[in-house]
């Protein structure tokens, strides 16, 4: 159907236009639009862009922002690679307990972040089940260091890549792989040159979703992070601290900085996706 210009009157005999559109717009405004507008207004008009920059442009804030984004990137890159592998294993291989594992992948979606937070800390603390051996064998501390943050964010972002890539793998026409083989390509070459490019857009989408989720993650991270300013203090925590000090303007400034960086990152990823889709065509 052709998209028509916007009208308030019901455009067709299909019932429910007024009610559904009305509810949608009203609740969207109350819950999403107006609060976001208030935030931006408070930041840009109430406080001022220059003032916000001044708040953000300090070592502690930069450290926190860098940490949040760096850790999110590292974790999401890990999830990108591991997620593709896991999706492949779940779709193509058969082994005992596969169904269980497949269901378990959704655990980070279903499990409350605070539960994940204390659980991971318990395991990776210096005296924990895994933290102790890692400390002895590798001399690494996991909990209360940036490494711990990486692990927490890997946990949080795990399902995103797997779940976006799985359906694509399921739809792959085996004949393309067979064709590659008949042309003399080794299995590895087939996988890297034929299969992976088909998965790339979905994987990238999953990566973007994992990144968006990890950057703002709070509950899973603050238990394992140690929260030392300039070292293991994530940006959301800094916002909370400002709020506890009643420094609303400071909190708003950092929040807007986070949103701006996230927005830019996601825009870049979207552009990459559009470019890659154009190059390879709709697969």
């Amino acid at each position: 159907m052709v998209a028509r210009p916007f009208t308030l009157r019901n455009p067709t005999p299909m019932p429910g236009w007024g009610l559904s559109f009305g509810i949608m717009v009203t609740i969207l405004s109350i819950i999403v639009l107006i609060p976001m507008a208030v935030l931006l207004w408070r930041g840009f008009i109430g406080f001022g862009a220059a003032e916000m920059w001044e708040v953000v442009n300090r070592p502690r804030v930069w450290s926190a922002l860098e940490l949040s984004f760096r850790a999110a990137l590292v974790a999401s890159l890990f999830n990108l690679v591991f997620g593709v592998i896991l999706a492949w294993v779940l779709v193509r291989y058969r082994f005992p307990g596969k169904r269980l594992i497949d269901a378990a992948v959704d655990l980070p979606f279903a499990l409350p972040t605070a539960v994940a937070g204390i659980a991971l800390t318990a395991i990776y603390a210096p005296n924990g089940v895994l933290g102790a051996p890692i400390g002895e064998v590798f001399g690494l501390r996991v909990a209360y260091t940036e490494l711990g943050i990486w692990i927490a964010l890997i946990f949080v972002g795990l399902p995103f890549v797997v779940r976006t890539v799985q359906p694509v793998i399921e739809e792959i026409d085996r004949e393309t792989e067979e064709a590659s083989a008949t042309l003399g390509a080794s299995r590895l070459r087939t996988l890297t040159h034929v299969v992976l490019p088909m998965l790339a857009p979905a994987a990238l989408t999953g990566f973007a979703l994992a990144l968006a989720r990890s950057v703002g993650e709070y509950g899973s991270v603050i238990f394992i992070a140690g929260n030392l300013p300039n070292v293991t203090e994530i940006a959301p925590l800094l916002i909370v601290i400002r709020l506890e000090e009643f420094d609303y303007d400071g909190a708003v400034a950092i929040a807007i900085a986070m949103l701006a960086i996230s927005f830019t990152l996601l825009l870049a990823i979207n552009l990459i996706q559009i470019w890659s889709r154009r190059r390879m065509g709709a697969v």
Partner: protein
Amino acid sequence: MNIEIEEIAKEFGTTAALHPVSLTIPSGTLVALLGPSGSGKTTLLRILGGLEFPSAGRVLFDGSDATGLTVQERRAGFVFQSYALFRHMTVFDNIAYGLRARPRKTRPSAPEIARRVTKLLDLIKLPDIGARYPSQLSGGQRQRVALARALAIEPRMLLLDEPFGALDAKVRRELRQGLRDIHDTTGLTTVFVTHDQDEAMELADLVVVMSMGRIEQVGKPEEIRSRPKTPFVREFITA
């Protein structure tokens, strides 16, 4: 019931799907709206059924202005191209749907509804499939169920959108005859949309050839064949 279409036009945004068209359909005729895709035939059918609002013009049923009637009030039995059977209801429930949807005052009792549904299943020659679900039926069977469902509401007219489209040749022939039989039995004014001229010529009493939102010619099948009025009709109709 006779149908008068007076200067009906329809625009979607800036595209004109129907330039003002006028047509008279005498009561009880079996009419084919024939044309290639984009000719506006489905749009016209949907306007008759109340599924689209015309941008201009009127529709008259038996002389009274029906343009303001809602879909529900029109009692136009509509058979969709995809049949649109209710996938989660049995065949029986599908056919009974329109009767059950009536307000209490005019709603028949449950035994009466059952009786009517059974009669309709006999009419479409599928007496035993009442308990099956649409996904368990073949294409031809679904088409007939869709027809029975539309007939159940005792419609004033029957509207069919490419009723034989997605079926193989043998099934189509059987269904064509079935439609003709039903039309002759019920005497309902019937309008169907098709791009297949053999179908139109074989079935219809009156053929309306359309192209690009305009009516090119209206007439009996032999007339259209032997005396094409416009270049389009000449080219489109291969004898």
